[in-house]
């Protein structure tokens, strides 16, 4: 059973539907106690980091997520969920959860033909293996919608990169936590495959 965190940051139903498609039961909750005691957590979200952090703090979900991370519960962050697990965000200069060292930065593009938000299908290139990225081939594409991206301080936390004017981290992880800037729930078969792997993942890095 997967627990999807609802923290008032966009449409989380699509993540729940994608879980159903791969035969995984998922509940949606904004109750910190449920989150801290979950078997597995998906931390999705679209929108702005400052308002999301404000909401997480107000509801106590920030502490519940930290507790879950320390309790070795497998966590999958998606999009905004891949950004606010870092220490801070340039968006509104905001302190974030700090589960992974680093910060979230905005695209600064010199090429005027490139657009922000970075929206559409783009190639994801593995830089080191991870159980959730198993089977991903060169040329595999995933769906992105974002203007900011995660920038882990330590290279060891970077698992995959993509390119939009600059190479940027699009999958990061630390121990039982893994997160993607792209949307697996909107990335067709390859995205569903990643969700399926997460549903089976025990949170360790050995295959």
């Amino acid at each position, binding site marked *: 059973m997967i627990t999807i965190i609802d923290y008032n940051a966009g*449409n989380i*139903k*699509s993540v729940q*539907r*994608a879980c*159903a*498609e791969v035969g995984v039961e998922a509940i949606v909750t904004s109750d910190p106690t449920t989150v801290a005691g979950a078997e597995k957590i998906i931390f999705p979200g*679209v*929108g702005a980091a400052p308002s999301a952090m404000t909401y997480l703090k107000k509801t106590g979900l920030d502490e519940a997520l930290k507790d879950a991370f320390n309790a070795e519960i497998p966590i999958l962050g998606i999009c905004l969920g891949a950004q606010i697990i870092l220490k801070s965000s340039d968006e509104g200069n905001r302190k974030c959860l700090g589960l992974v060292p680093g910060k979230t930065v905005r695209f600064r593009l010199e090429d*005027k033909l490139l*657009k922000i*938000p*970075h*929206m*559409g*299908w*783009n*190639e994801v290139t593995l830089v080191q293996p991870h159980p959730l990225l198993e089977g991903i*081939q060169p*040329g*595999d*594409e995933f*769906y992105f*919608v974002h203007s900011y991206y995660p920038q882990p301080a330590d290279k060891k936390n970077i698992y995959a990169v993509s*390119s*939009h004017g600059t190479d940027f981290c699009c999958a990061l992880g630390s121990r039982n936590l893994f997160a993607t800037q792209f949307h697996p*729930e*909107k*990335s*067709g*078969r*390859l*995205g*569903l495959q990643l969700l399926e792997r997460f549903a089976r993942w025990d949170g360790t890095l050995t295959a």
Partner: protein
Amino acid sequence: MLSKRLVVCLDVRSGKLAKSIKFVDTKDIGDPITKARQYYEDGVDELVFYDITASRENRDIMIDFVEKVARQIFIPFSVGGGIRSVPDATKLRNAGAEKVNVNTAAVKRKELISEIAHAIGSQSTILSMDIRKVDPNKEMPSGYEIVINGGVTPTGIDALRWAKTGEELGAGELVINSIDADGTKDGYEINLTRMMADSVNIPVIASGGAGKPEHLYDVLTEGHADAALVASIVHYGEYTCRALKEYLHNRGIKIRMNY
């Protein structure tokens, strides 16, 4: 680098798939959800559903329809037709549509674009434009006019100026539909598409006129479009999404091939 996109448009009338020729004489050609699923599995990058009846009474049917679609396809899709208010947009978005398209109602009251963009984000707000060629004049220097109400009512509004206004108000993407090319299968309106793509900083989806794979290639290269929208050439089985994408890929267009 972002890939170019193949977009399939499904005109929906009371939950049934309809295809129009030059915006009149619509006929039903099947179940849109079955079709959508088929295109999804065949590698389409995005889907657009237009509610061509777009009546108030149809709102609930459409929301129910969007929920059903969202359970079947796991790529982005947008919905358009009769969206007149922020609640219209947010309901469709909450039902599972990644984006919403506004058209006629935005021409009648342009603030609708900024209101929707504020509520659900620019990236989810698409401005669709039905456009016809006219002789350039003082009011319409670009030589293209916006036509509303499903392509029947000319407005006297310059299409290029409207595209720029739409971008300023917060539209995150434009659908450029040429009424002259729609249904002809003679190719997209390349000049119109390129003029639009070169004048705005948001993605442009070219629509109307696709008959052969070359047409898609032309509009994605010469026409500077970010995405090519097709309808009848896939609805009637002339081409599959895969065949269209393979053609583009083989000619060097970056497009998603692994699915």
